[in-house]
């Protein structure tokens, strides 16, 4: 339980931000402290060494004054030592062979052998010693050893260490608190996003994440999530509408079946009467299953099950076949069915989908063209774009401009549908099925219309790779007139 909570806590961004902050502060404090200490120490030693160097000059002057009276020299050296600020200051003078000639100040027993060497400084704990060769005119070559206790220097450094340690401790203790507060501030908008997102329900998608207006990454994240929510909400709305519409559409054949069956059950009837009623039921059943099949195509499109990778179709063959299918219908209605040359065009997708596409467009066009009018079908390959364009143009009443943007919506029936009310009303799904198929196959469908003159539907589909490579274009003559 406790370990669980601990794990939950340590998994948060806030915790890791805090941890990183502590690590960074610790490293910074450590580096800074060591640096300050090093600089300070170097400066102290330099000062000390400069003082010793000055002492060398002073001692050399004293030697020149008193030479060769070593006793007097030692007295004056003791005077210097007495007044010297450096603790346990001492000086020793040797001749070239290493025999001591004079000494003054603190009687330190320095173990360093005196040798003929260039001026150097040595640390002989706790002393700092300066060794120099003295060559002055009128004097023999002398070796000088001069130094003092470094303790004051070490004391100063210790004091610095202490100060730095105390400050560092304070900073290190404050770092987690600061880190926690900062991390909290930084992650607070995230907490808000989480809380809001947790409140969202598929049934209630009206809430949106707050935008703070800072334009930072979290604002961008909120905006992205909001626009995603917008899309989801509109998708769900459309779906709800679709389901409601579909239920409504399914209800009328169901009602018809129900009433036929009720009539049949009402009283004893002759076999002929039963056959008629059952025939009616059968017709409604067929209508129902056709409707369901059409809804299934749309559903397949929605879940991405329509795809063009599995097979290819010769669109020109489908167009020819569909012309044959509707030729008699057009003839009966007094509509001329015209088609220009149909060039060979291989497009991705199963032929059943292309059949649906061409037949629905053709059916629509014939339906809305008055007797004496014509429906024109065209197929054009555009080698540059590797596409094929299928146009179905009617000479019908046209689609009002306010209806035009909606013609591909599911269950949309414009005013024009009501003009022909013979038989059953159309499902209002044909064009949306066309759109679903075309989009799934990577193409595009567009509608253009002039009131009173007619409408033109244009489908653009990509050619299959092989077909495009083969450079299709040799047209096959085909013309159907009814």
């Amino acid at each position, binding site marked *: 339980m406790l370990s669980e909570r601990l794990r939950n806590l340590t998994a948060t961004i806030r915790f890791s931000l805090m941890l990183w902050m502590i690590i960074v502060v610790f490293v910074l404090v450590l580096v800074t402290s060591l640096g300050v200490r090093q600089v300070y120490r170097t400066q102290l030693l330099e000062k000390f060494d400069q003082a010793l160097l000055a002492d060398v000059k002073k001692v050399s002057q004293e030697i020149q004054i008193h030479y060769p009276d070593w006793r007097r020299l030692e007295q004056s050296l003791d005077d210097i030592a007495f007044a010297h600020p450096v603790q346990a200051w001492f000086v020793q003078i040797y001749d070239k062979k290493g025999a001591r000639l004079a000494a003054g100040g603190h009687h330190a027993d320095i173990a360093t052998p005196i040798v003929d060497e260039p001026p150097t400084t040595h640390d002989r704990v706790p002393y700092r010693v300066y060794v120099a060769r003295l060559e002055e005119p009128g004097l023999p070559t002398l070796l000088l050893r001069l130094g003092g206790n470094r303790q004051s220097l070490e004391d100063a450094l210790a004091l610095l260490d202490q100060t730095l340690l105390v400050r560092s401790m304070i900073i290190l203790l404050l770092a987690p608190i600061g880190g926690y507060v900062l991390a909290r501030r930084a992650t607070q908008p995230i907490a808000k996003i989480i809380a809001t997102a947790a409140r969202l329900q598929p049934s209630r998608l009206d809430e949106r994440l707050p935008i703070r207006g800072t334009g930072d990454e979290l604002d961008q994240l909120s905006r992205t999530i909001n626009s995603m929510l917008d899309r989801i909400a509109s998708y769900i709305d459309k779906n709800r509408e679709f389901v409601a519409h579909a239920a409504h559409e399914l209800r009328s054949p169901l009602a018809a079946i129900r009433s036929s069956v009720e009539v049949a059950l009402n009283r004893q009837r002759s076999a002929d009467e039963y056959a008629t009623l059952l025939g009616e039921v*059968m017709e409604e059943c067929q209508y129902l299953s056709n*409707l369901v099949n059409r809804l299934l195509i749309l559903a397949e499109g929605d879940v991405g*099950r329509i795809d063009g990778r599995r097979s290819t179709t010769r669109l020109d063959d489908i167009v020819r076949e569909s012309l044959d299918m509707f030729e008699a219908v057009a003839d009966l209605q007094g509509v001329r069915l015209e088609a220009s040359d149909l060039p060979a065009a291989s497009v991705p997708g*199963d032929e*059943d989908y292309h059949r649906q596409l061409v037949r629905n467009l053709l059916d629509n066009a014939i339906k809305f063209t008055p007797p004496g009018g014509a429906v024109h079908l065209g197929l054009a390959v555009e080698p540059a774009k590797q596409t094929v364009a299928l146009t179905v143009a009617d000479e019908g009443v046209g689609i009002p401009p306010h209806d035009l943007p909606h013609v591909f919506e599911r269950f949309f029936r414009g005013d024009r549908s009501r003009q022909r009310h013979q038989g059953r009303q159309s499902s209002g799904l044909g064009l949306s099925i066309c759109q679903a198929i075309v989009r799934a196959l990577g193409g595009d469908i567009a509608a253009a219309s002039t009131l009173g003159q007619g409408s033109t539907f244009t489908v653009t589909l990509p050619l299959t790779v092989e077909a495009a490579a083969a450079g299709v274009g040799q047209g096959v003559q085909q013309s159907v007139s009814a």
Partner: protein
Amino acid sequence: MDILVIEDDPAIGKAVQQGLNEANHSCTWVREGPLGLDYAATQKYEAIVLDLLLPGEHGLQVLAKLRERGIKTPVIVVTALGAVGDKVEGLGKGADDYLVKPFEMAELLARIDAVCRRATLKPAARLQVGDLRLDLATRKVTCAGVDVELTPTEFSILEMLMRHDGQVVTRKMLCENLWGSDWEGITNVIEVHMNRLRSKLHKGVKQPLIHTIRGRGYALRAS
């Protein structure tokens, strides 16, 4: 004919069994794939009607095992899945035909006939029903000795009706035979062709040959 039906849905299974029996077929109905496999392996059937969505083993697996065992009995796959992909897969796995639920008995019977004929008989070169003769080689139709000029579409419709002499041929069957797949729109594309065919055939014939059967389709009857 002896027909094996592998179908788990009791309502559909019962209806199919009854329909087949009434069409003078003998029918064995099993509700599980493995059992069906045993029956198919041990008894001689002329056709198998196989549902795809079976409990336990999927119909396509049953089909694959059937073909693995070298059983070449024609198989008609039946499923509620209407997607093109399943159709392709089913036919790829060795099915002879494919039928989407809901289907009509007439359609199933026609398809059983078709797959059995495909498996055994050569297609006849000439069809005859009453006074009506149809020559498949010369594509000529005569009615009581008089030549009848038909469009290719009308010829195909008549051929289909004559092949199923006395039986109901549905609009869906005609559509699929003529143009590859059914037309689910409101516009009755078959009826117009049918009316033209009728008017050409019935010229000089007192009794109508082609009958419309409400809610089901059309039937050709000589008498």
